């Protein structure tokens, strides 16, 4: 132990590595990979069946019992379809893009603890070991990795995933994919800010970035795994969870934020030109990201695998609770799709920048203040009054500035787009401030198809 580092904080295995470590890591990766693939297959069936039910249809019912094998049949069909590549496409980037999407979707799942008994050993009897189980005589955690940066890995992967969409749209050498990808990356970057800030709320409450530590702090000491009072859903106030849910939906390009592939406007969005297995990879990444985001939400706000541990297989119960919670969120995402109409692009941007981010900023200040008061042990009335007065003044100032900025923006927008124009001139540019101007410019100059991919035709 030259560096005195625990296994999780020792990525280079400076203390040496034995076959037990390698075996555990290999098994974890394989299980996570296979489980995600199967879960994706199930998710596709689940979504199609559920949405059919909500629309009074039957849905897939031919392949396998209740149509369960429909996704498998579709997957096999994708393998045997012809792999088309447009003549104008950039060959290298066109092939690279689907893999970026799929790989980032897989990697993000690595930090999710999918099980392990977190409850106090004294109250459960034998099993509780701080979220670990024993494999090959080694104690290990039930997640692929618990890096010190923890939840930041999710943010890193979701920012890298932007490349997959962006490069797919650009390299297709066609205008609709390009517009779709520009929309997608703008949307992802905008909502990443709100997403990151709602993660920060949890990190402030937990005092740690590690998902393992975040989960263990949401589990109480009793045999039934603590009450939901300890979940960060309630201890951070409901606001961060709501913001996380909305911005995660936007990050996933799920309805009602699926402007990326708005069929009526863009044919199919960034993957219009993709076919065969490459298209299947995008599809896979999309559904896998839905599962990962649901799992992350459960981890951050709903105690992860926390829940009552009854009898017998004590290590199995947490995983059962975890899967049940994830399933609830998968249902919510399908429900969104069935019930909510798609937003307009300017509505999308206003919601992200003018509602979610300011709300989250205010809430973060509130949470930080609460933490500060707790840390410093301020309790006398005079201290509390000074602190509360100062922060109330700060909040009021911020709110006034925001309101003034919004009013000015509204006035300027009205002046730009509606003053001195007749109705015909107004209508097509109504959503111009955010959406169609960059797209038009992109069409005018940027599509690689106009001069051939390398420009040497």
């Amino acid at each position: 132990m030259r560096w005195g580092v625990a296994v999780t904080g020792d990525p280079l295995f400076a203390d040496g590595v034995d076959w037990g470590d390698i075996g555990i890591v290999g098994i974890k990766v394989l299980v996570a990979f296979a489980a995600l693939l199967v879960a994706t297959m199930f998710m596709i069936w689940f979504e199609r069946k559920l949405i059919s039910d909500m629309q009074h249809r039957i849905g897939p019912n031919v392949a396998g019992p209740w149509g369960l094998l429909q996704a498998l049949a579709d997957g096999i069909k994708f393998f045997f379809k012809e792999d088309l590549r447009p003549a104008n496409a950039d060959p290298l980037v066109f092939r690279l893009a689907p893999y970026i999407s799929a790989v980032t979707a897989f990697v993000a799942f690595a930090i999710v603890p999918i099980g392990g008994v977190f409850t106090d050993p004294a109250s459960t009897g034998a099993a509780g070991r701080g979220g670990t189980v024993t494999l090959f005589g080694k104690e290990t955690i039930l997640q692929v990795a618990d890096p010190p940066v923890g939840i930041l890995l999710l943010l890193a992967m979701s920012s890298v995933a932007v490349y997959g969409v962006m490069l797919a749209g650009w390299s297709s050498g066609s205008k609709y994919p390009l517009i779709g990808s520009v929309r997608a990356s703008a949307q992802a970057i905008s909502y990443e800010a709100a997403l990151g800030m709602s993660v920060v709320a949890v990190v402030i409450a937990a005092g740690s970035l590690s998902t393992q530590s975040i989960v263990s702090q949401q589990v109480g000491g009793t045999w039934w795994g603590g009450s939901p009072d300890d979940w960060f859903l309630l201890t951070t106030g409901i606001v961060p969870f709501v913001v996380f849910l909305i911005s995660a939906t936007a990050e996933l390009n799920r309805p009602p934020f699926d402007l990326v592939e708005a069929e009526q406007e863009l044919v199919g969005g960034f993957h219009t030109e993709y076919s065969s297995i490459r298209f299947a990879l995008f599809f896979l990444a999309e559904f896998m990201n839905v599962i990962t985001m649901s799992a992350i939400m459960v981890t951050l706000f709903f105690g992860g695998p926390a829940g009552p541990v009854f009898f017998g297989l004590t290590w199995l119960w947490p995983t059962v609770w975890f899967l049940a919670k994830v399933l609830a969120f998968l249902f919510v995402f399908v429900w969104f799709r069935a019930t909510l109409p798609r937003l307009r692009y300017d509505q999308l941007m206003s919601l992200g920048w003018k509602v979610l981010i300011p709300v989250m900023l205010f809430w973060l200040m509130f949470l930080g203040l609460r933490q500060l008061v707790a840390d410093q042990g301020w309790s006398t009335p005079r201290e509390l009054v000074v602190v509360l007065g100062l922060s109330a003044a700060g909040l009021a100032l911020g709110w006034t500035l925001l309101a003034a900025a919004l009013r000015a923006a509204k006035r300027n927008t009205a002046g730009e787009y509606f003053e001195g124009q007749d109705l015909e001139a107004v209508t097509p540019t109504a959503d111009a401030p955010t959406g169609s101007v960059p797209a038009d410019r992109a069409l005018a100059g940027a599509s690689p198809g106009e001069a051939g991919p390398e420009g040497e035709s």
Partner: protein
Amino acid sequence: MVEVVVFAVAGAACLVGAVGVVLSRNPVHAALMLVMTLFGVAVLFVALQAHFIAAVQVIVYAGAIVVLFLFVIMLLGVDRAAELSLGALPAQRWTAAAFGLGGAAVLVWLVAAVDRIFKGAHSYELESAGVVETDAVATSYATDVSAIARSLFSDYVYAFELTSLLLIVAVIGTVILARRSYGADGGRAGQHGDESAPAESGATPQEARQ
């Protein structure tokens, strides 16, 4: 052993990416090569146990800054192989080569100097000699976030606040520069001017080539 392999792979990725940025004819390919270099550097940070810096490297540089580069490249219509043979003065090439070699020489000298200072000293020897406090490094790996936060918001708080102020000023300046004033001509002329300018600049290189 593992350390050497990780360093070799990450270093190779950095170098290949860096050379690729310079040699790529297509700006989009160059930007992607830059991403490869950034990832290599992030892996090196992890190897140095600077986990938070590694994550920030990926989130900020790979996830935001290069994405913005790509945005600009795609929207300005320069995403094609540029004619690099035109316009370069011969004298510039020689100057650039001289400066490049000089910079490389300085770099090699620096590395050699550092290597001489710590020659043959392993980290535990340095620790016993009081040069490096390994225990401090080892215990702080999990909390490098709080260590960074502490120094950022105490020792370097003025630098931090000034940097944020600078960024805000830059954003406001960009907005003011990019906005046309719509007062005089009712806005329509301004809009048309906006649209036609990039369209022309995008079309010119194509026409020149065909």
